[in-house]
């Protein structure tokens, strides 16, 4: 059985005129893009539009791709920008996000699911109060679980800047939660605050 072509190989083929090979890349990364957009606060019903936009943008700018970085880095960058744009344009009618029924760590009971939905909605509200330049690194580092150097590449900023922004973002989020969303505070922290 032939091995799967790498991202770079596929991109070279697309650039050489075999446009249909781009579909493999879309299949490979569409879940990553859609999930990142959803976590960045894009409403579920708009995730598909955002993913479509992201891949179309990638296709149009494929010639600018630098193979020394992973394709996912570039995809994250475009997705973060698209999600922030979408949030800005939808700021007036932000909708709550649902937790899907098929959670990875086990199927929750209806009561648990309702609780998770509420927490998720409040979290998006709380994160919405953070300035964008703090929110993006916080989401990439602590929600997407990316290392600092990867976050720095995605946001095109020095690692030191990312570290200081993460520090400030966490401190601000804690303060926001303490003042406005005490229900979101971890159980231990709530007791400490009390």
């Amino acid at each position, binding site marked *: 059985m032939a091995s799967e072509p790498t991202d770079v190989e596929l991109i070279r083929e697309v650039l050489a005129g075999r446009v249909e090979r781009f579909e493999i890349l879309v299949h490979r990364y569409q879940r990553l893009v*859609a999930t990142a957009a*959803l976590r960045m606060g894009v409403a579920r019903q708009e995730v598909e539009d955002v993913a479509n936009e992201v891949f179309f943008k990638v296709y149009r700018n494929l010639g600018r791709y630098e193979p020394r970085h992973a394709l996912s880095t570039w995809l994250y960058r475009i997705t973060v920008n698209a999600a922030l744009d979408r949030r800005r344009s939808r700021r007036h009618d932000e909708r709550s996000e649902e937790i899907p029924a098929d959670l990875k760590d086990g199927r929750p009971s209806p009561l648990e699911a309702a609780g*998770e939905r509420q927490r*998720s909605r409040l979290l998006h509200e709380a994160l919405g109060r953070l300035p*964008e330049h703090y929110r993006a690194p916080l989401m990439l580092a*602590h*929600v997407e679980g990316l290392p600092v150097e990867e976050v720095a590449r995605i946001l095109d900023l020095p690692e030191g800047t990312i570290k200081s922004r993460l520090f400030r973002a*966490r401190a*601000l989020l804690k303060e926001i*939660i303490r003042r406005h969303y005490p229900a979101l505070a971890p159980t231990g922290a709530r007791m400490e605050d009390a």
Partner: protein
Amino acid sequence: MTIRRPIFRAAPDPGEAWARQVLTPLRRLRADCDVAAAVMARIAATAAGASEARPLSPRQARLAWAAGFLAGSVALGLVTSALRGAAGQGQAVHEVLGLLTSLGRVAVLLGRFLVSAYGRCLEIAAPVARAVWALFEVLTPILRGAGMAASACGVLSILISFYIFTHARAAASAPGGGRRS
């Protein structure tokens, strides 16, 4: 990305573990979609030179509206000048001009608004509009002269036709139908 001042004063960093714990509900979010067919269709449409049928964003819609309004105003100006050239300074033209003056005032008000909103865009468009207007003013007498020349030619053509027709008729009414030797 615009840098804004933080809303709150500096507080101690609660740490990565705290952030991970708080953001757990977001980490559990998963989205699955299949956009491959849609993306490839869009790419194919672009490759074929088809226009993209995507909805305009509010900003694009406002720009399109402003551009449409400007284009409409220019078209109206062209028609007015053509009317002036063709009909002189008659009463009807005065009324049309009055109406256009009112519309012009409204346009100026809207223009000021647009300048404040899209100043840079108008900085480019305004000289072009002025140049078009100046060009039209220069062309108006030429067009009028060309119109008069065309009318004179038309009249001359009618006279020549009439002359030929009359002669042909006279020839046809002669006995034998042709020339007499």
